[in-house]
């Protein structure tokens, strides 16, 4: 294959990764932006989505119905777990930023070890719901991966619609800006927090459901999405949704290109160096609030 073909393949791979990463990081960014909670357990919610997809695929008759069912059951179950965690843990520590970091580290291990006990240590494959290849002039490419990108784009648009066009979205944005004044205008801030934590978890779970036919489900699979989401959210600016999306595409596509031409490890090293650079030059992130 020519350099151009390789480059196109790398960009394609990177774009698919970017869409999934944007979905995962958007959940983390929303939770931080509205609740000021750094959810260290976010990657485990991604992993739960993947494990639930495997579980549902075992019960469903065929891969397509398993996949469609998982797209509904995954985010609902994980969203429910997130609401329970909000009520049982975050609310108890009064959403104190430092305490919630420690609390979500605890949640990370609780979820991870529970999955290890119930699901086991093995990586398990989930059959893709569709098998077709899109033929480009230089190579054929997985149709399922393109559908993952399209579904992720649809979910990102749906999240944008929720935030910009609905009452709940307006409540979320008002709470993000000033939770005390929001309460003075009838916004049930605690319920908004629970909804945001559920939405963040649900988005991560959806990303997990979408990637499991590509990656396999494993109880330790939450680490990479967590690290990449933090990279994206820090570069984009904590709490900035626009910044999160832009950073997800910068990191996702550059990760794809560097991984194809050099190595995935180099891609992670460069992304981490970029985070360090952003933290030094612009601690609030490229699109976050400038420090006072």
């Amino acid at each position: 294959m020519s350099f151009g073909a390789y480059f196109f393949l790398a960009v394609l791979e990177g774009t698919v990764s970017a869409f999934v990463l944007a979905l995962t990081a958007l959940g983390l960014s929303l939770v931080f932006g509205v609740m000021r909670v750094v959810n260290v357990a976010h990657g485990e919610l991604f992993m739960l989505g993947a494990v639930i997809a495997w579980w549902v695929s075992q019960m469903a008759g065929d891969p397509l119905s398993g996949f469609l069912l998982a797209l509904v059951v995954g985010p609902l179950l994980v969203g429910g777990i997130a609401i329970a965690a909000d009520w049982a843990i975050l609310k108890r520590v009064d959403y104190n930023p430092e305490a919630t970091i420690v609390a979500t580290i605890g949640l990370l291990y609780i979820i991870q070890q529970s999955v290890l006990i119930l699901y086991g240590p093995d990586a398990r494959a989930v059959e893709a719901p569709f098998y077709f290849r899109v033929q480009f002039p230089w190579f054929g490419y997985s149709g399922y991966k393109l559908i993952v990108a399209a579904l992720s784009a649809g979910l990102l648009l749906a999240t944008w619609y929720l935030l910009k066009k609905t009452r709940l979205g307006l409540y979320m944005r008002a709470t993000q800006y000033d939770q005390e004044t929001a309460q003075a205008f009838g916004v049930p801030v605690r319920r908004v927090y629970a909804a945001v934590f559920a939405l963040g978890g649900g988005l991560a779970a959806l990303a997990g459901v979408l990637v499991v036919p590509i990656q396999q489900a494993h109880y330790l699979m939450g680490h990479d999405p967590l690290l990449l989401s933090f990279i994206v959210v820090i570069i984009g600016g904590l709490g900035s949704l626009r910044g999160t999306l832009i950073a997800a595409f910068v990191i996702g596509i550059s990760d794809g290109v560097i991984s194809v031409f050099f190595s995935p490890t180099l891609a992670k090293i460069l992304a981490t160096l970029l985070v360090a650079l952003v933290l030094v030059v612009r601690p609030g992130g490229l699109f976050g609030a400038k420090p006072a």
Partner: protein
Amino acid sequence: MLTVEALSSHYGSVQVLRDFSLALAPGEVLGLLGRNGAGKTTAMKTILGLIRASGGSVRLDGVELTDLPAHRIPALGLAYVPQGRRLFGELSVEENLRLGLMVKDKGKETRARILDLFPVLSERLGQRAGSLSGGEQQMLATARALCLEPKVLLMDEPTEGLQPSMVAKILETVRVLKGQGVAVLFVEQKVEAALAVADRIAFVENGTVCETATPEALHADPAPLYRYVGVGQDAG
């Protein structure tokens, strides 16, 4: 209408309000005056449930408010114009107003009436609230609160940092509300502005209402102004 009795509240272990009492009738305008740190803003926030009361009661038309979560109080008829406006600056003017309208699911008629009162906002509906001028921001903060069609409006330093024409506009708005039977409780640093619009002035010191007087009585004998606000000490 609004009755506050023996209200107390704390910041951590520090008691800020103690035995704070006042009453407001429909259409009455009550000004709270006092030095910085006297507890005026804390009193407003405690009445609104934004700071939890540690004792006493706040009743609006007989309904006890101190038992309710803060977000349920606005729908009962208490609206708030915070100190420093505290608009949702990243949201548009329209969205700020919509938050007010959603409290009681008020629709187009209320919105149109509010925009008639503040016509300049009609031209700025799509603009980011944070990009408005200081006077426009104060108008929006007031309009947002009026979208609730409140029985009682609480205004914390509504004329702070405004030019004289805007101060006059805000005071005129208070008079219009009074004419509509809305009770107004406001904190004010500009004594003349407070005396111009209030039916009564309550002086706050050390978290409690020490004395109340009418503007006429204060014009005749300004001693409480010297005592609680420090106004005219040199002249006295």
